C-alpha cells in the first residue's frame, strides 16, 4: 500500500504533493494497474490532513485517467505511467549513472548535480517552447 509523505517546506499545495507521489510511484512501478490506493480515511488518519484535500487529489488523478473509483470498494490504479520503452529506461539510467559518476569525479556534490540537472531540464523545456 502506498504511503504518502508531506513536505511542509516545499511550498507545493498538499493535494498536488499527493498527486505527484502517486505519479512518481506509477513511474517507478511501485504502483501497478489494479492496485488500490489508500482510502481517504486511511490517508487522513495518517497525515492529519483535510479529507477534501485527499478527495481533490484522487479526483485529479481520476480526471487524468490514472485511477478509477469503484463505489464501496476503493480507488484503483488504471494505467501505469512513464514514457518510452523499458529497454530505453535501462539504457538511459545506465548512461545517467555514468554521468553522475563523472560529476563526482569532477568534485561536484549532490546539490551541484541537482542544480545542473534542473538547469538543463529548464533549458530543454525552453527550447521546447521556442
Amino acid at each position, binding site marked *: 500500500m502506498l504511503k504518502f509523505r*508531506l513536505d511542509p517546506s516545499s511550498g507545493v499545495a498538499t493535494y498536488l504533493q499527493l498527486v505527484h507521489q502517486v505519479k512518481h510511484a506509477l513511474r517507478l512501478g511501485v504502483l501497478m494497474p489494479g492496485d488500490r490506493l489508500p482510502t481517504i480515511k486511511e490517508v487522513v488518519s495518517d497525515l492529519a490532513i483535510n479529507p477534501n484535500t485527499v*478527495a481533490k487529489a484522487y479526483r485529479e488523478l481520476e480526471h487524468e485517467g490514472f485511477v478509477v473509483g469503484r463505489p464501496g470498494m476503493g480507488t484503483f490504479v488504471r494505467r501505469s505511467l512513464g514514457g518510452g520503452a523499458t529497454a530505453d529506461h535501462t539504457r538511459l539510467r545506465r548512461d545517467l549513472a555514468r554521468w553522475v559518476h563523472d560529476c563526482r569525479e569532477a568534485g561536484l556534490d549532490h546539490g551541484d548535480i541537482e542544480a545542473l540537472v534542473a538547469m538543463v531540464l529548464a533549458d530543454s523545456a525552453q527550447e521546447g517552447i521556442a
Partner: protein
Amino acid sequence: MTADRTVRMFGGGCGELTPPAQSATALEAVRLAKRYRGTWALRDCTLSVPAGRVVAFVGPNGAGKSTFLRLVAGLIAPTRGSVRVFGEPVGQRAEALARVAFLAQDKPLYDGFTVAEMLRFGHHLNPGWDDALARQRLAELDIPLNRKVGKLSGGQQAQVALTIAVAKRPDLLVMDGPLANLDPVARHDIMRSLMAAVAETQMTVVLSSHVVSDLTNACDWLMVLNRGQVQISGEVDELLAAHRMLSGPAELADEVAARMPVINDSRSGRQADLLVHTGPGTSLHDPRWSASGVSLEELVLAYLRRPDTTSLPRPTLTTT
C-alpha cells in the same frame, strides 16, 4: 468534463461513501454581537460557512473567539443579531441543539468516572448517541474503558472528550482550543483522529486556536476574529491564491500600493516587501517585482497586525 458526475460530492469518484450534496450553509451569523456588562466581546459579526468544511478559527487572546463559539453552541444568548446552524436559529429548539456538539477548552470530563461511565453519561444525555462508534474509536486508540478519566494522560483525556463529542453524531462540531495544553505528539494525534472522524461522518467542524501551524493542512476554511470583529472568512485555497508577496524597488512601492490593497508593507533601504491582496485573476506584469505565494501563517499574521483591514467574500471584486 466526464469526471464531473460525482465530483461535487465529498469523496466523489473515489469509490467511497458519498453523502448528500453539501450545498447547505452550516453556520450563519448576522450582525452578531455580545456585550458583557459594559464591554463588547463581539461586535457586528456577519459571516457564513458552507457545510462540510473544517474551519480554522483564529485570533489573538481576547478577540472574542470563545464568546462566538458559545453563541454558536447556544450556551449564551446574543445581545444583538442572530446565529443560525443549518438554517435553524440557535437555542430555540432541542432538535437544533442536538445537531451541534460543543467541546469546551477545559475538556469537560469527570475525573472520578471511568471511561465507560463517561460513555454512559454521554449516551444518557444525547438522543442520537452512537455507542458503537465511541467504543470503536476508543479501541483504536487503545484507551481502556475501565480506567478512571483522572488517570489518563492529557492526550488521552482529549481523545475521550473528542470521542464523546463525535459519538453525539453532530452535524456541526465546535471545539474551543482543542489543542491547547497538549504536547506536539498529542496535538498531531488529535488532529489525525479528528480528520478520520470528518472523513467518516462528513460533519462540519469549527476549531479555534491561536497556533495557525497546527491547523494548516487540516482546515479548508479560515475565519479570523480580531478585536471582536470578523477580519477574514473564506476558503483557504482561495485566500492563498488571492494574496502575493511582492518584492521590488522601494521607490515603486507607493505606486503598487495605490493599485491594490497592501496588508503588510515592510521596506528596508532600497527593497520593499509588500503582502498584497491581488484578488482573483489580477497579476503584476512588472519585471522589477517578483511575486511569491504566501503561507497561511504569514497571511494570518499580516492581517492580525492590521486589525483595520478585512478580507471578506464579496459578490464581485472589482480591481482597477
